[in-house]
């Protein structure tokens, strides 16, 4: 079983700061981390490999050279090897161009060692789109199953896998044919504290870095900024009601005022 996990380096949005004057990201304030959902994706691959008692886990990322850090982090969690595609040609890609570039890299990885399962995080915390995973699946013409919360019964002879997919009202039990692509929720597993030998392995590991020239049959017009149909028109600070106001009067009066303030939000309330 060959599992490829797609991972992304993202700024830690929990503590990110936006420069209020320029509406740009204060990079110094935002350390780069492995997208938390992707960490769960790697962990799930490790779990599956353990379950089967064999297999190989590759990780794939796209980004600047320093994004090798997230590949090393994945090795710490238990991946076997990692590839980074890094080239100016990929820069400025939206989700469509990203899924194109990654699918090209996956084709190359698959050529050497056919891929059975691709796992992605549900979405990246910097973009929150969740579009790249399904996009890759479409390009490789394999079925995607998004929002997966459990992987079980990997049947190698039948080439099927049993999945639980989270939906609003509960979950679906899905049988999918392998190869397929999964995107996983955080609740699928908990990240284990990596063992020391993995740490040492990761510290030594040199990820494979591919430029656009290392990929085959690439249509360059589909890459990077050129290949991205969407552009950011403008950035602005979200319109947020001004804080710090106190309601006046006695308890009854305050409650009444609050009810009035909430009157235009009534569709948010639904008794259970």
């Amino acid at each position, binding site marked *: 079983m060959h599992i490829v996990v797609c991972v992304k380096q993202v700024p*830690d949005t*929990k*503590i990110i700061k936006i420069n209020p004057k320029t509406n740009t990201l204060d990079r*110094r*304030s935002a*350390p780069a981390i492995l997208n938390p959902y992707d960490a769960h994706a790697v962990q799930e691959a490790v779990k599956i490999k353990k379950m089967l008692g064999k297999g190989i886990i590759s990780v794939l990322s796209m980004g600047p050279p320093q994004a090798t850090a997230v590949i090393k982090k994945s090795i710490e969690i238990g991946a076997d090897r990692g590839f980074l595609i890094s080239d100016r040609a990929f820069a400025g890609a939206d989700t469509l161009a990203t899924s194109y570039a990654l699918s090209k890299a996956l084709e190359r990885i698959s050529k050497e060692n056919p891929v059975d399962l691709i796992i992605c995080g549900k979405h990246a915390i910097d973009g929150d789109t969740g579009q790249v995973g399904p996009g890759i699946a479409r390009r490789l013409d394999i079925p995607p199953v998004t929002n997966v919360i459990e992987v079980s019964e990997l049947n190698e002879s039948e080439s099927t896998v049993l999945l639980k997919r989270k939906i609003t009202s509960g979950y679906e039990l899905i049988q999918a044919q392998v190869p397929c692509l999964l995107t996983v929720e955080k609740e699928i597993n908990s990240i284990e*504290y990596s063992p020391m030998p993995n740490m040492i392995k990761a510290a030594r590991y040199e990820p494979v870095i591919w430029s656009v020239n290392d990929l085959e049959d690439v249509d360059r017009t589909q890459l990077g900024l050129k290949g991205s149909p969407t552009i950011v028109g403008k950035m602005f600070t979200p319109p947020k009601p001004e804080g710090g106001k106190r309601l006046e009067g006695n308890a009854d009066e305050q409650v009444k005022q609050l009810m009035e303030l909430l009157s235009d939000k009534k569709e948010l309330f639904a008794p259970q």
Partner: protein
Amino acid sequence: MSTKTIEEKQYLIRFKADTKSHLTVLDHDICMTKCPDKICTIFCPAEVYKWEGLRMQVGYEGCHECGSCRIGCPYQNIKWEYPKGGHGIVFRLA
């Protein structure tokens, strides 16, 4: 913005808090009965310690890991460890 309160200062920092505290008050009774000053609630640079009337509340998530409480507690009543690897405070600048 210049910071005025300790809350505002603490806002500036990135913490990767573990779910388990690395600071333990060994005996809350000592704080209650023997330590009228509760000096840790004063000198701790992150206001980690707050006296709640019966027990010492430990807001370890905002700890700077400086070690002052371990040394400054007059009753050596604080068990002080490092947070689990990679957790705790993460300075980005100085």
